[in-house]
Protein backbone atom coordinates (compact mmCIF):
# COMPACT_ATOMS: atom_id res chain seq x y z
CA UNK A 1 0.00 0.00 0.00
CA UNK A 2 2.71 2.42 1.01
CA UNK A 3 4.78 1.35 -1.94
CA UNK A 4 1.86 1.88 -4.30
CA UNK A 5 1.25 5.32 -2.89
CA UNK A 6 4.91 6.17 -3.23
CA UNK A 7 5.02 4.94 -6.82
CA UNK A 8 1.96 6.95 -7.71
CA UNK A 9 3.51 10.02 -6.16
CA UNK A 10 6.78 9.49 -7.98
CA UNK A 11 4.95 9.12 -11.30
CA UNK A 12 2.96 12.27 -10.68
CA UNK A 13 6.04 14.31 -9.96
CA UNK A 14 7.89 12.81 -12.85
CA UNK A 15 5.43 13.99 -15.47
CA UNK A 16 4.84 17.34 -13.78
CA UNK A 17 1.22 17.32 -12.96
CA UNK A 18 -0.57 20.53 -13.18
CA UNK A 19 -4.29 21.01 -12.92
CA UNK A 20 -5.73 22.65 -15.95
CA UNK A 21 -7.55 25.21 -13.91
CA UNK A 22 -5.06 28.04 -14.12
CA UNK A 23 -3.15 26.74 -17.09
CA UNK A 24 -2.54 28.94 -20.09
CA UNK A 25 -5.85 29.15 -21.87
CA UNK A 26 -4.27 30.74 -24.88
CA UNK A 27 -4.01 29.11 -28.25
CA UNK A 28 -2.14 29.60 -31.44
CA UNK A 29 -3.81 32.06 -33.76
CA UNK A 30 -3.45 30.16 -37.00
CA UNK A 31 -5.99 27.41 -37.60
CA UNK A 32 -3.58 25.53 -39.87
CA UNK A 33 0.00 25.89 -41.05
CA UNK A 34 -0.92 28.85 -43.21
CA UNK A 35 -0.69 29.62 -46.90
CA UNK A 36 2.63 29.31 -48.62
CA UNK A 37 2.40 32.47 -50.65
CA UNK A 38 0.64 35.81 -50.66
CA UNK A 39 1.29 38.28 -53.49
CA UNK A 40 3.42 40.93 -51.77
CA UNK A 41 1.56 43.80 -53.38
CA UNK A 42 -1.57 42.82 -51.52
CA UNK A 43 0.11 42.88 -48.14
CA UNK A 44 -0.35 45.90 -45.93
CA UNK A 45 1.71 44.70 -42.99
CA UNK A 46 3.34 41.61 -41.56
CA UNK A 47 3.20 40.63 -37.89
CA UNK A 48 5.64 38.06 -36.60
CA UNK A 49 4.58 36.41 -33.33
CA UNK A 50 7.38 34.75 -31.45
CA UNK A 51 6.67 31.71 -29.24
CA UNK A 52 4.81 32.67 -26.10
CA UNK A 53 3.06 30.89 -23.28
CA UNK A 54 -0.03 30.41 -25.39
CA UNK A 55 1.66 29.12 -28.53
CA UNK A 56 5.00 27.49 -29.12
CA UNK A 57 5.16 28.21 -32.85
CA UNK A 58 6.37 31.20 -34.73
CA UNK A 59 3.35 32.63 -36.46
CA UNK A 60 3.38 35.10 -39.32
CA UNK A 61 0.18 36.98 -39.91
CA UNK A 62 -0.27 39.19 -42.93
CA UNK A 63 -2.88 41.92 -43.13
CA UNK A 64 -4.24 42.59 -46.61
CA UNK A 65 -4.22 46.03 -48.08
CA UNK A 66 -7.71 46.38 -49.47
CA UNK A 67 -9.91 44.11 -47.40
CA UNK A 68 -8.01 44.35 -44.12
CA UNK A 69 -8.36 40.59 -43.79
CA UNK A 70 -5.73 38.65 -41.93
CA UNK A 71 -4.04 35.52 -43.18
CA UNK A 72 -1.44 33.18 -41.79
CA UNK A 73 1.73 32.57 -43.70
CA UNK A 74 3.45 29.22 -43.35
CA UNK A 75 6.79 30.06 -41.66
CA UNK A 76 8.39 27.06 -43.39
CA UNK A 77 7.46 28.15 -46.89
CA UNK A 78 10.14 29.58 -49.16
CA UNK A 79 8.28 32.86 -49.48
CA UNK A 80 8.07 33.36 -45.72
CA UNK A 81 11.73 32.48 -45.31
CA UNK A 82 12.78 35.08 -47.86
CA UNK A 83 10.47 37.59 -46.29
CA UNK A 84 11.77 37.02 -42.80
CA UNK A 85 15.33 37.28 -44.01
CA UNK A 86 14.50 40.76 -45.15
CA UNK A 87 12.53 41.55 -42.05
CA UNK A 88 15.54 40.47 -40.03
CA UNK A 89 17.58 43.10 -41.81
CA UNK A 90 15.03 45.80 -41.13
CA UNK A 91 14.40 44.57 -37.62
CA UNK A 92 16.40 47.25 -35.88
CA UNK A 93 14.56 50.09 -37.49
CA UNK A 94 11.08 48.85 -36.83
CA UNK A 95 11.29 47.28 -33.44
CA UNK A 96 8.12 47.93 -31.52
Amino acid sequence: MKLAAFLLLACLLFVHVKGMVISPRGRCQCIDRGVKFIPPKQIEKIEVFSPSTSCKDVEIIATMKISGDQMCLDPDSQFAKNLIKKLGQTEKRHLE
Partner: protein
Amino acid sequence: MGHRNEPPWLRLLRTSMSKKQTFLMEDIFSLFGNDSDDYNYSYSYSDEESDTCCTGAVCTQHDSMKFEEVFVPVLYSVVLVLGFLGNGLVLAVLCQMRRGWSVTDTFILHLAVADTLLLLTLPFWAVQASMGWIFGTPICKVTGAVFQINFYCGIFLLACISLDRYLSIIHAVQMYSRKKPWAVQSSCLFVWIFCLLLSIPDWVFLEANGDDRREGKVECTHNYLLYFNSSKNIRMASRLLYHIVGFLIPSVIMIYCYSCILLRLIKGTQGLQKQRAMRVILALVVAFFVSWTPYNIVLLVDTLHARNMIEDKCETRTTLDISVTATSTLGYLHCCLNPILYAFVGVKFRRHLLQMLKFLGCRLKGQVRSASRRSSVWSESGNTSTSGF
Protein backbone atom coordinates in the same frame (compact mmCIF):
# COMPACT_ATOMS: atom_id res chain seq x y z
CA MET B 1 5.49 21.16 -35.85
CA GLY B 2 8.30 21.90 -38.21
CA HIS B 3 10.67 22.84 -35.42
CA ARG B 4 13.31 20.25 -35.91
CA ASN B 5 14.78 21.13 -39.26
CA GLU B 6 14.38 24.83 -39.02
CA PRO B 7 17.17 27.02 -40.35
CA PRO B 8 19.46 28.73 -37.82
CA TRP B 9 18.15 32.18 -38.57
CA LEU B 10 14.63 31.15 -37.64
CA ARG B 11 15.90 29.61 -34.43
CA LEU B 12 17.67 32.87 -33.69
CA LEU B 13 14.47 34.71 -34.34
CA ARG B 14 12.60 32.30 -32.15
CA THR B 15 14.84 32.85 -29.16
CA SER B 16 15.77 36.47 -29.59
CA MET B 17 12.27 37.83 -29.86
CA SER B 18 9.99 38.02 -26.94
CA LYS B 19 7.32 40.11 -28.56
CA LYS B 20 5.29 40.57 -31.64
CA GLN B 21 7.00 42.53 -34.36
CA THR B 22 5.14 44.50 -36.95
CA PHE B 23 6.52 45.40 -40.32
CA LEU B 24 4.87 47.51 -42.97
CA MET B 25 5.40 46.14 -46.45
CA GLU B 26 5.92 49.60 -47.86
CA ASP B 27 8.97 50.08 -45.66
CA ILE B 28 10.42 46.79 -46.76
CA PHE B 29 9.96 47.60 -50.41
CA SER B 30 11.28 51.09 -49.97
CA LEU B 31 14.42 49.58 -48.51
CA PHE B 32 14.94 46.92 -51.11
CA GLY B 33 13.22 48.43 -54.07
CA ASN B 34 10.44 47.03 -56.14
CA ASP B 35 12.84 44.83 -58.03
CA SER B 36 13.10 42.49 -55.07
CA ASP B 37 12.92 38.80 -55.82
CA ASP B 38 9.49 38.32 -54.45
CA TYR B 39 8.05 40.79 -56.88
CA ASN B 40 9.55 39.29 -59.96
CA TYR B 41 9.49 35.64 -59.12
CA SER B 42 6.14 35.47 -57.48
CA TYR B 43 4.94 33.04 -60.13
CA SER B 44 7.29 30.40 -58.78
CA TYR B 45 5.64 30.68 -55.37
CA SER B 46 2.25 30.44 -56.99
CA ASP B 47 3.11 26.87 -57.83
CA GLU B 48 3.59 26.12 -54.18
CA GLU B 49 0.27 27.68 -53.45
CA SER B 50 -1.48 25.07 -55.50
CA ASP B 51 -1.37 22.55 -52.66
CA THR B 52 -4.61 23.16 -50.83
CA CYS B 53 -3.75 22.04 -47.33
CA CYS B 54 -4.23 25.34 -45.70
CA THR B 55 -6.48 28.33 -45.87
CA GLY B 56 -4.38 30.43 -43.55
CA ALA B 57 -7.40 31.39 -41.49
CA VAL B 58 -6.64 33.47 -38.41
CA CYS B 59 -8.49 32.93 -35.15
CA THR B 60 -7.98 35.58 -32.49
CA GLN B 61 -8.95 35.12 -28.86
CA HIS B 62 -10.81 38.38 -28.69
CA ASP B 63 -14.26 36.87 -28.10
CA SER B 64 -13.34 34.47 -25.33
CA MET B 65 -11.28 37.18 -23.62
CA LYS B 66 -14.19 39.61 -23.75
CA PHE B 67 -16.39 36.93 -22.20
CA GLU B 68 -13.88 36.32 -19.41
CA GLU B 69 -13.57 40.02 -18.72
CA VAL B 70 -17.24 40.23 -17.79
CA PHE B 71 -18.10 36.73 -16.61
CA VAL B 72 -15.18 35.98 -14.28
CA PRO B 73 -15.29 39.07 -12.00
CA VAL B 74 -19.07 38.85 -11.59
CA LEU B 75 -19.38 35.14 -10.96
CA TYR B 76 -16.24 34.91 -8.81
CA SER B 77 -17.61 37.65 -6.58
CA VAL B 78 -20.80 35.66 -6.06
CA VAL B 79 -18.83 32.49 -5.30
CA LEU B 80 -16.56 34.43 -2.96
CA VAL B 81 -19.38 35.93 -0.89
CA LEU B 82 -21.36 32.69 -0.64
CA GLY B 83 -18.26 30.65 0.09
CA PHE B 84 -16.92 32.97 2.79
CA LEU B 85 -20.29 33.04 4.47
CA GLY B 86 -20.69 29.25 4.58
CA ASN B 87 -17.12 28.29 5.36
CA GLY B 88 -16.72 31.12 7.84
CA LEU B 89 -19.73 29.85 9.77
CA VAL B 90 -18.33 26.31 9.76
CA LEU B 91 -14.99 27.51 11.10
CA ALA B 92 -16.70 29.65 13.73
CA VAL B 93 -18.87 26.76 14.91
CA LEU B 94 -15.91 24.41 15.04
CA CYS B 95 -13.92 26.92 17.07
CA GLN B 96 -16.79 27.29 19.47
CA MET B 97 -17.13 23.57 20.17
CA ARG B 98 -13.43 23.05 20.41
CA ARG B 99 -13.72 20.06 22.69
CA GLY B 100 -16.08 17.60 21.13
CA TRP B 101 -14.62 17.15 17.67
CA SER B 102 -15.48 13.89 16.01
CA VAL B 103 -13.45 12.37 13.22
CA THR B 104 -15.68 13.83 10.53
CA ASP B 105 -15.52 17.21 12.23
CA THR B 106 -11.77 17.17 11.79
CA PHE B 107 -12.16 16.42 8.11
CA ILE B 108 -14.78 19.15 7.82
CA LEU B 109 -12.40 21.59 9.50
CA HIS B 110 -9.67 20.83 6.97
CA LEU B 111 -12.21 21.01 4.14
CA ALA B 112 -13.39 24.43 5.30
CA VAL B 113 -9.80 25.67 5.57
CA ALA B 114 -9.00 24.38 2.08
CA ASP B 115 -12.15 25.92 0.61
CA THR B 116 -11.48 29.25 2.32
CA LEU B 117 -7.91 29.40 1.05
CA LEU B 118 -9.08 28.57 -2.46
CA LEU B 119 -11.72 31.29 -2.26
CA LEU B 120 -9.06 33.77 -1.12
CA THR B 121 -7.32 33.41 -4.49
CA LEU B 122 -10.46 34.15 -6.52
CA PRO B 123 -10.19 37.98 -6.28
CA PHE B 124 -6.74 37.73 -7.85
CA TRP B 125 -8.11 35.78 -10.83
CA ALA B 126 -10.99 38.22 -11.14
CA VAL B 127 -8.56 41.16 -11.32
CA GLN B 128 -6.49 39.23 -13.86
CA ALA B 129 -9.52 38.67 -16.06
CA SER B 130 -10.47 42.32 -16.11
CA MET B 131 -7.14 44.16 -16.16
CA GLY B 132 -4.40 41.56 -16.38
CA TRP B 133 -2.01 40.24 -13.72
CA ILE B 134 -0.73 43.35 -11.95
CA PHE B 135 0.77 41.63 -8.91
CA GLY B 136 4.07 40.37 -10.29
CA THR B 137 5.62 36.93 -10.54
CA PRO B 138 6.16 36.10 -6.82
CA ILE B 139 2.50 36.62 -5.95
CA CYS B 140 1.59 34.72 -9.12
CA LYS B 141 3.52 31.68 -7.88
CA VAL B 142 2.04 31.86 -4.38
CA THR B 143 -1.53 32.44 -5.55
CA GLY B 144 -1.35 29.74 -8.20
CA ALA B 145 0.13 27.18 -5.83
CA VAL B 146 -2.33 27.99 -3.03
CA PHE B 147 -5.14 27.61 -5.52
CA GLN B 148 -3.83 24.28 -6.80
CA ILE B 149 -3.12 22.84 -3.35
CA ASN B 150 -6.56 23.65 -2.05
CA PHE B 151 -8.31 22.63 -5.22
CA TYR B 152 -6.92 19.11 -4.94
CA CYS B 153 -7.10 19.07 -1.16
CA GLY B 154 -10.83 19.79 -1.18
CA ILE B 155 -11.56 16.92 -3.53
CA PHE B 156 -9.30 14.45 -1.68
CA LEU B 157 -10.89 15.35 1.65
CA LEU B 158 -14.33 14.61 0.21
CA ALA B 159 -13.01 11.18 -0.77
CA CYS B 160 -11.56 10.75 2.75
CA ILE B 161 -14.90 11.56 4.36
CA SER B 162 -16.71 9.02 2.18
CA LEU B 163 -14.04 6.40 2.93
CA ASP B 164 -14.34 7.01 6.67
CA ARG B 165 -18.12 6.69 6.56
CA TYR B 166 -17.89 3.55 4.45
CA LEU B 167 -15.43 1.85 6.78
CA SER B 168 -17.32 2.69 9.93
CA ILE B 169 -20.78 1.85 8.59
CA ILE B 170 -20.18 -1.15 6.36
CA HIS B 171 -17.20 -2.78 7.98
CA ALA B 172 -17.62 -1.35 11.46
CA VAL B 173 -13.93 -0.60 11.30
CA GLN B 174 -13.01 2.35 13.41
CA MET B 175 -10.00 3.50 11.49
CA TYR B 176 -10.02 6.63 13.57
CA SER B 177 -11.21 6.92 17.13
CA ARG B 178 -11.05 9.37 19.94
CA LYS B 179 -8.36 7.28 21.53
CA LYS B 180 -5.95 7.93 18.73
CA PRO B 181 -6.59 11.46 17.50
CA TRP B 182 -3.25 11.47 15.76
CA ALA B 183 -4.57 9.00 13.17
CA VAL B 184 -7.05 11.38 11.61
CA GLN B 185 -4.68 14.32 11.93
CA SER B 186 -1.93 12.41 10.17
CA SER B 187 -4.35 11.41 7.38
CA CYS B 188 -5.13 15.06 6.81
CA LEU B 189 -1.44 15.91 7.00
CA PHE B 190 -0.77 13.29 4.36
CA VAL B 191 -3.41 14.80 2.09
CA TRP B 192 -1.90 18.27 2.53
CA ILE B 193 1.63 17.06 1.83
CA PHE B 194 0.44 15.17 -1.22
CA CYS B 195 -1.29 18.31 -2.53
CA LEU B 196 1.79 20.37 -1.74
CA LEU B 197 3.84 17.99 -3.88
CA LEU B 198 1.28 18.27 -6.67
CA SER B 199 1.85 22.02 -6.65
CA ILE B 200 5.63 21.82 -7.23
CA PRO B 201 5.29 22.46 -10.99
CA ASP B 202 3.32 25.60 -10.18
CA TRP B 203 6.09 26.95 -7.98
CA VAL B 204 8.54 26.33 -10.79
CA PHE B 205 6.65 27.33 -13.92
CA LEU B 206 4.14 29.99 -12.97
CA GLU B 207 5.12 33.45 -14.17
CA ALA B 208 3.50 36.74 -14.97
CA ASN B 209 3.84 36.98 -18.74
CA GLY B 210 2.61 39.45 -21.27
CA ASP B 211 1.32 37.74 -24.39
CA ASP B 212 0.76 39.50 -27.68
CA ARG B 213 -1.47 36.69 -28.85
CA ARG B 214 -3.78 37.65 -26.02
CA GLU B 215 -3.76 41.33 -26.90
CA GLY B 216 -0.66 42.01 -24.84
CA LYS B 217 -2.42 41.14 -21.60
CA VAL B 218 -0.17 40.12 -18.70
CA GLU B 219 -1.35 36.84 -17.19
CA CYS B 220 -0.20 34.45 -14.52
CA THR B 221 0.45 31.29 -16.51
CA HIS B 222 2.74 28.30 -16.72
CA ASN B 223 5.77 29.08 -18.81
CA TYR B 224 7.32 25.90 -20.16
CA LEU B 225 9.14 27.67 -22.96
CA LEU B 226 12.52 27.69 -21.28
CA TYR B 227 12.46 24.07 -20.27
CA PHE B 228 10.72 22.03 -22.92
CA ASN B 229 10.47 22.08 -26.65
CA SER B 230 7.44 19.88 -27.01
CA SER B 231 5.14 21.24 -24.38
CA LYS B 232 2.13 19.73 -26.11
CA ASN B 233 2.86 16.26 -24.78
CA ILE B 234 3.47 17.60 -21.30
CA ARG B 235 0.20 19.41 -21.47
CA MET B 236 -1.57 16.23 -22.54
CA ALA B 237 0.10 14.12 -19.84
CA SER B 238 -0.72 16.60 -17.14
CA ARG B 239 -4.28 16.86 -18.34
CA LEU B 240 -4.72 13.10 -18.29
CA LEU B 241 -3.37 13.08 -14.76
CA TYR B 242 -5.75 15.81 -13.77
CA HIS B 243 -8.65 13.72 -15.04
CA ILE B 244 -7.43 10.68 -13.13
CA VAL B 245 -6.21 12.23 -9.88
CA GLY B 246 -8.53 15.21 -9.68
CA PHE B 247 -11.75 13.58 -10.80
CA LEU B 248 -11.75 9.88 -11.63
CA ILE B 249 -10.18 8.44 -8.46
CA PRO B 250 -12.20 10.62 -6.04
CA SER B 251 -15.37 9.90 -8.05
CA VAL B 252 -14.85 6.16 -7.98
CA ILE B 253 -14.12 6.23 -4.24
CA MET B 254 -17.20 8.35 -3.54
CA ILE B 255 -19.52 6.34 -5.78
CA TYR B 256 -18.38 3.02 -4.36
CA CYS B 257 -18.52 4.09 -0.71
CA TYR B 258 -21.84 5.86 -0.89
CA SER B 259 -23.55 3.20 -2.99
CA CYS B 260 -22.50 0.55 -0.45
CA ILE B 261 -23.95 2.70 2.31
CA LEU B 262 -27.12 3.25 0.31
CA LEU B 263 -27.53 -0.49 -0.30
CA ARG B 264 -27.08 -1.13 3.39
CA LEU B 265 -29.70 1.50 4.13
CA ILE B 266 -32.19 -0.01 1.69
CA LYS B 267 -31.79 -3.45 3.25
CA GLY B 268 -32.05 -2.11 6.78
CA THR B 269 -34.99 -0.95 8.81
CA GLN B 270 -37.51 1.56 7.57
CA GLY B 271 -37.74 4.95 9.15
CA LEU B 272 -37.63 8.67 8.82
CA GLN B 273 -33.97 9.09 9.56
CA LYS B 274 -33.15 6.43 7.03
CA GLN B 275 -34.90 8.39 4.31
CA ARG B 276 -33.12 11.47 5.51
CA ALA B 277 -29.74 9.80 5.40
CA MET B 278 -30.39 8.55 1.92
CA ARG B 279 -31.39 11.99 0.76
CA VAL B 280 -28.23 13.46 2.25
CA ILE B 281 -26.06 10.90 0.48
CA LEU B 282 -27.78 11.49 -2.83
CA ALA B 283 -27.39 15.24 -2.40
CA LEU B 284 -23.66 14.84 -1.70
CA VAL B 285 -23.02 12.70 -4.74
CA VAL B 286 -25.27 14.67 -7.08
CA ALA B 287 -23.74 17.98 -5.98
CA PHE B 288 -20.23 16.70 -6.59
CA PHE B 289 -21.01 15.42 -10.06
CA VAL B 290 -23.18 18.33 -11.12
CA SER B 291 -20.31 20.64 -10.15
CA TRP B 292 -17.38 18.83 -11.64
CA THR B 293 -18.65 16.67 -14.53
CA PRO B 294 -19.28 19.53 -17.00
CA TYR B 295 -15.74 20.82 -16.53
CA ASN B 296 -14.24 17.39 -17.07
CA ILE B 297 -16.35 16.80 -20.16
CA VAL B 298 -15.30 20.15 -21.64
CA LEU B 299 -11.65 19.34 -20.94
CA LEU B 300 -12.04 15.94 -22.59
CA VAL B 301 -13.57 17.57 -25.68
CA ASP B 302 -10.71 20.07 -25.65
CA THR B 303 -8.21 17.22 -25.53
CA LEU B 304 -9.91 15.53 -28.50
CA HIS B 305 -9.79 18.88 -30.26
CA ALA B 306 -6.08 19.23 -29.59
CA ARG B 307 -5.58 15.71 -30.96
CA ASN B 308 -7.33 16.80 -34.18
CA MET B 309 -10.23 14.43 -33.65
CA ILE B 310 -12.65 17.34 -33.98
CA GLU B 311 -12.65 19.72 -36.88
CA ASP B 312 -10.63 22.79 -36.03
CA LYS B 313 -12.73 25.86 -36.55
CA CYS B 314 -12.52 29.25 -34.94
CA GLU B 315 -16.02 28.94 -33.50
CA THR B 316 -15.10 25.61 -31.93
CA ARG B 317 -12.07 27.15 -30.24
CA THR B 318 -14.00 30.13 -28.91
CA THR B 319 -16.83 27.92 -27.67
CA LEU B 320 -14.35 25.63 -25.92
CA ASP B 321 -12.53 28.52 -24.23
CA ILE B 322 -15.78 30.03 -23.02
CA SER B 323 -17.01 26.62 -21.82
CA VAL B 324 -13.81 26.00 -19.84
CA THR B 325 -14.21 29.33 -18.05
CA ALA B 326 -17.90 28.79 -17.34
CA THR B 327 -17.69 25.18 -16.20
CA SER B 328 -14.65 25.74 -13.97
CA THR B 329 -16.61 28.44 -12.17
CA LEU B 330 -19.38 25.91 -11.64
CA GLY B 331 -16.72 23.69 -10.06
CA TYR B 332 -15.62 26.41 -7.64
CA LEU B 333 -19.23 26.86 -6.66
CA HIS B 334 -18.89 23.44 -5.04
CA CYS B 335 -16.75 25.15 -2.37
CA CYS B 336 -19.87 27.02 -1.29
CA LEU B 337 -21.96 23.86 -1.17
CA ASN B 338 -19.57 21.92 1.06
CA PRO B 339 -20.54 23.72 4.30
CA ILE B 340 -24.21 22.98 3.65
CA LEU B 341 -23.76 19.42 2.46
CA TYR B 342 -21.29 18.29 5.06
CA ALA B 343 -21.64 20.50 8.11
CA PHE B 344 -25.05 22.07 8.39
CA VAL B 345 -26.85 18.92 7.35
CA GLY B 346 -25.84 17.56 10.76
CA VAL B 347 -27.97 18.39 13.75
CA LYS B 348 -24.98 19.04 15.97
CA PHE B 349 -23.69 21.75 13.68
CA ARG B 350 -27.03 23.47 13.42
CA ARG B 351 -27.48 23.36 17.18
CA HIS B 352 -24.12 24.99 17.74
CA LEU B 353 -24.80 27.52 15.04
CA LEU B 354 -28.09 28.48 16.64
CA GLN B 355 -26.43 28.73 20.03
CA MET B 356 -23.78 30.92 18.56
CA LEU B 357 -26.29 33.14 16.80
CA LYS B 358 -28.30 33.50 19.99
CA PHE B 359 -25.12 34.35 21.82
CA LEU B 360 -24.42 37.03 19.28
CA GLY B 361 -27.78 38.54 20.02
CA CYS B 362 -29.63 37.27 17.01
CA ARG B 363 -33.10 36.22 17.89
CA LEU B 364 -33.58 33.25 15.72
CA LYS B 365 -36.32 30.93 16.77
CA GLY B 366 -34.86 27.73 15.58
CA GLN B 367 -35.95 24.48 16.98
CA VAL B 368 -33.81 21.45 17.01
CA ARG B 369 -36.15 18.57 16.95
CA SER B 370 -35.10 15.71 19.12
CA ALA B 371 -36.43 13.27 16.57
CA SER B 372 -33.77 14.18 14.10
CA ARG B 373 -31.01 13.95 16.63
CA ARG B 374 -30.24 10.40 15.67
CA SER B 375 -29.47 11.43 12.13
CA SER B 376 -26.51 13.36 13.44
CA VAL B 377 -24.50 10.45 12.14
CA TRP B 378 -23.55 12.76 9.31
CA SER B 379 -21.40 14.81 11.55
CA GLU B 380 -20.38 12.14 13.99
CA SER B 381 -19.90 9.07 11.89
CA GLY B 382 -16.77 8.15 13.76
CA ASN B 383 -18.56 7.03 16.86
CA THR B 384 -22.23 6.83 16.25
CA SER B 385 -22.46 5.53 12.74
CA THR B 386 -23.34 1.95 13.52
CA SER B 387 -26.12 2.98 15.83
CA GLY B 388 -27.21 5.74 13.54
CA PHE B 389 -29.58 3.78 11.40
